[in-house]
């Protein structure tokens, strides 16, 4: 880690102009684009899937009650499916952030540190 430990939040903060420069840099634009391209569609996806589930739960009782095996019915499987997708999306995001976001953020931070010293 290139960050130095400072006590009590007394961190060295770049100037406003430096922030504007970083914001305008291609590296930062790339980081922002990567983040948004992942989190926005993923959020839309899981919200739509959750909405589908809730709507089925509210309006399609008969469909949800169809038995699949034993006493396990469609509703239970879709409900457990919500757990499964939540865990999967969590895993996908962690992998994505580790591979795509962390190195880019780290690069921007160390570039700034290099300028400072």
């Amino acid at each position, binding site marked *: 880690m290139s960050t130095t430990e400072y006590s009590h939040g007394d961190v060295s903060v770049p100037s406003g102009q430096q922030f504007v420069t970083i914001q305008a840099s291609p590296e930062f634009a790339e980081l922002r684009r990567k983040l948004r391209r992942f989190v926005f569609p993923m959020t839309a996806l*899981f919200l739509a899937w959750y909405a589908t589930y809730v*709507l089925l739960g509210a309006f399609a009782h008969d469909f949800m009650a169809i038995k699949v095996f034993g006493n396990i019915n469609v509703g239970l499987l879709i409900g457990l499916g919500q757990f499964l997708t939540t865990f999967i999306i*969590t895993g996908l995001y962690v992998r994505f952030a580790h591979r795509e976001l962390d190195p880019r953020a780290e690069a921007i931070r160390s570039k700034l540190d290099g300028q400072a010293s």
Partner: protein
Amino acid sequence: MKPLAAGHETIGNPVANIAIFAVFVLITLYVVIRASQRNATATEFFTADRAFSGPQNGIAIAGDYLSAASFLGIAGAIAVYGYDGFLYSIGFLVAWLVALLLVAELIRNTGKFTMADVLSFRLRQRPVRLVAAASTLTVSLFYLLAQMAGAGGLVALLLNVKGRLGESIVIAVVGVLMIVYVLVGGMKGTTWVQIIKAVLLILGAAAMTVMVLAKFGMNFSDILGSAQSAVSHATTKGVASRNVLAPGAQYGGSMTSKINLLSLALALVLGTAGLPHVLMRFYTVPTAKEARRSVVWAIGLIGAFYLFTLALGYGAAAMVGPDRILRAPGGQNSAAPLLAFQLGGVVLLGIISAVAFATILAVVAGLTITASTSFAHDIYASLIKDHKVTEREQVRVSRITAVVLGVFGIALGILANGQNVAFLVALAFAIAASANLPTILYSLYWRRFNTRGALWSMYGGLISTIVLIIFSPAVSGAKTAMIPSADFAWFPLSNPGIVSIPLAFILGIVGTLSSPDRGDPERNAEMEVRSLTGIGAEKAVVTH
């Protein structure tokens, strides 16, 4: 051991229950005192020096989030209504994806102590901080009140403490313990209480789940079958006719109740990432990456816990039966304790009761530190003293606030004891989703967003949610209302989210676009760069 019978008897052995609970209190007090040798600076007191690891914080988040309402309430709802209780728990889980993907890391990078730090970062400080603090205090107070009032009912069931006086004393004890944890322990002590409680709660639920499954030869389908047949043989007609394996038993009736369900689902899924006491937990870790790990741990633990409640709820229906659950003093909330007694006798019941108490205690402590931090940091230091105040002074004010809040909570809890306040938790989520979440998202992701947008959205969300709930069937005009004798309800839904959440999002857009204010470009750049890269973020303090 006295057999379980219907009526006024309590179950198990109250002395054992109290003893096990006392052991929990002693252990946590010891840990709190040990953990809080230094609590002088604001960073120490409010954020535990940002020194917790991701997994530790994740466990604490689960401890904060899995309130008595989720443990006793959801297991009970599944036992009595079946599938609809399960539907409820899924909203609480999926909500964490909003926190993980959109909020946690960026908040950690941008804020210092409170939610208002983030919201007022690039907007006009004073008005935005004021409304953010108002919303924080409102959400925390409603949530606190629900927990405190619930404590009274739980006591009747578990400790054989009867009558208003006895229950009031227990509420006061919970309140005093909560004040002590917060005063002595600060954020560090409170976090340790939550970690201990979360471990106990999840292990307890896991053990009971294994025992239930073992009784049915590890066959979940058989549990479902027995649960349905137990419900079908219930003496009450309304209960016996329920199909507990499919949705609809609780929210299935009229169109209104279906829309009510949608409204609740919306508030649950969008509320979590706007709960101030959840947001504040992200400041206890050193980096955004640790904040991410915290949420991952929280999702794993909370998800596992809700899967356990599924087995416990249906298990309680199958093994205890809806008749005995509904006749017990706590009504459907007693499903999990009754099941514990059935499975493991006095000892298991005592453990589960102690865990339920610990749950209330840990959650109220977390709420109190959030509210008192917000008061000291946002209102006292920023608005009243215009930042001309030492950190030591902020901590002092926060401690005083915690005592005041605790006393206030005890008084309100005693007054609300026996009232139907179950809607308060859902209300807290609805306010968080409408007053907080739109402004959090806009200020993190929308560069054009400005002060007017924030004020319109936050005041609009806060006021519309409260007004709609006052004029809803949750407060008046229904048998189950808080004031059943009066009827001034004109809003048909007891969950206002489906109106107030879209309204707050729209008000944020309209307010922003109707104002020429584009903010300070340097401040806007600073917030965006900080939030995504962690440059200039508050660091962990080096421990000596």
